[in-house]
């Protein structure tokens, strides 16, 4: 076991991590933050997207032991109390959610991108979300939600 301390959604947390387990596993199973989803576990689908030290990454491809003293933002850190993050609200308003499994990854990726690039073109938005896959193929509603938000 390796002991790490890290800041998750603004809170100092510590965890004993097993062997080479991923940040995704530690978030879900040790730190009780199951919002980031495990699906492909090979970086193909983006359902486990988190922001690690300021960069959007797939948490399944991050070794938890390599996260000592890191700063992590997960989907659980987006809402302010009962008030949803504008990206979450836009996804609800536009019906950008079907089965919901890919949604946390899309929300984290879009919120991070729109924070830094509030007015992207449609192509830029698509490119930035190219690492997030929706198997219900609900991309149209997701993009409409985010494009509407970008224009506001």
């Amino acid at each position, binding site marked *: 076991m*390796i002991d790490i301390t890290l800041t998750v959604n603004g809170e100092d947390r510590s965890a004993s991590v097993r*062997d*080479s*387990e*991923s940040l995704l596993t530690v978030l879900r199973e040790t730190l009780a933050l199951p919002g980031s989803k495990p699906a492909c*576990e*090979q*970086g*193909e689908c*983006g359902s486990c*997207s988190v922001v690690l030290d300021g*960069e*959007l*990454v*797939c948490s*399944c*491809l*991050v*070794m938890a*032991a*390599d996260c*000592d003293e890191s700063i992590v933002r997960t989907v659980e850190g987006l809402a302010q109390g009962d008030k949803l993050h504008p990206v979450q609200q836009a996804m609800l308003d536009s019906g950008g959610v079907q089965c919901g499994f890919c949604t946390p990854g899309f929300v984290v*990726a879009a919120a991070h*991108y729109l924070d830094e690039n509030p007015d992207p073109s449609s192509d830029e938005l698509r*490119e*930035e979300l*190219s*690492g*997030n*896959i929706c198997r219900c193929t609900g991309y149209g509603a997701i993009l409409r939600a985010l494009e509407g938000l970008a224009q506001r």
Partner: protein
Amino acid sequence: MESVLPKSLQEALAALESEPDATLLAGGTDIMVEVNLAGLRPAHVIGLRRIDELRQLEGRRIGSGVTYRRLENGEHVALAQLSRTVGSPQIRNAGTIGGNLGTASPAGDALPFLAALDAEVELASAKATRVMRWDEFIVGVKKNSRQPGELITAAILPEHVPQRQAFAKIGVRSAMVISTVSACLFRDDDGTTTIALGSVAPIPLRPRKAEAMISAEKSPSQAALAEFARLVSEEVSPITDHRSTEGYRRYASGVLARRLLERCL
């Protein structure tokens, strides 16, 4: 498992000297797939992402820890083009040039760029630093010449890099795809042309006959372009696997080569 997270190159090399066979972890995009899906359980890990010296991008030197994301808007057009084809934003934020060299996959996206330029790879250990040409370093499918105790510190480009350069790859979609065929071409003012292709041989392939033939053509005719494509198709050495067939890869290699050359004329 034991892990060390050095903050300087010196610390990393000292850690590597005491555990020469430690697993070197850069962006994790290859190693963690092995961990998650193939049961890899490294005994010793040295995490490299905190080492500033490896993240330097200056002149001819690309530090091994430089991520694709940072190369997307760089001065070398072909390097920017290839960086934008890597995985997805998530993968480009993590994946590094050093990791691409370390994995030495036949499909490594940065490798045709380095091979077409005859770039060098710099390796350091606690005792010494050495530099070797790309084809001394990459020696087979996922095989390289790094010795225990060594760390890949940089890719070093030649002093002269032709301005006219282009990269392209073929895959089943534009994002999140491992190349079926990739190619990178440079055309200098005197006509000298170099091209390297990926995913068509165990290591990046330089079709030398095609290079020599087209380098002698100052303003290639349609017939010369066709001959260039034919020679490239003849010289590549692809296999049939789950991503494509030998025949398609051979054909596509010629098409890509000609297309890149036309962009550089």
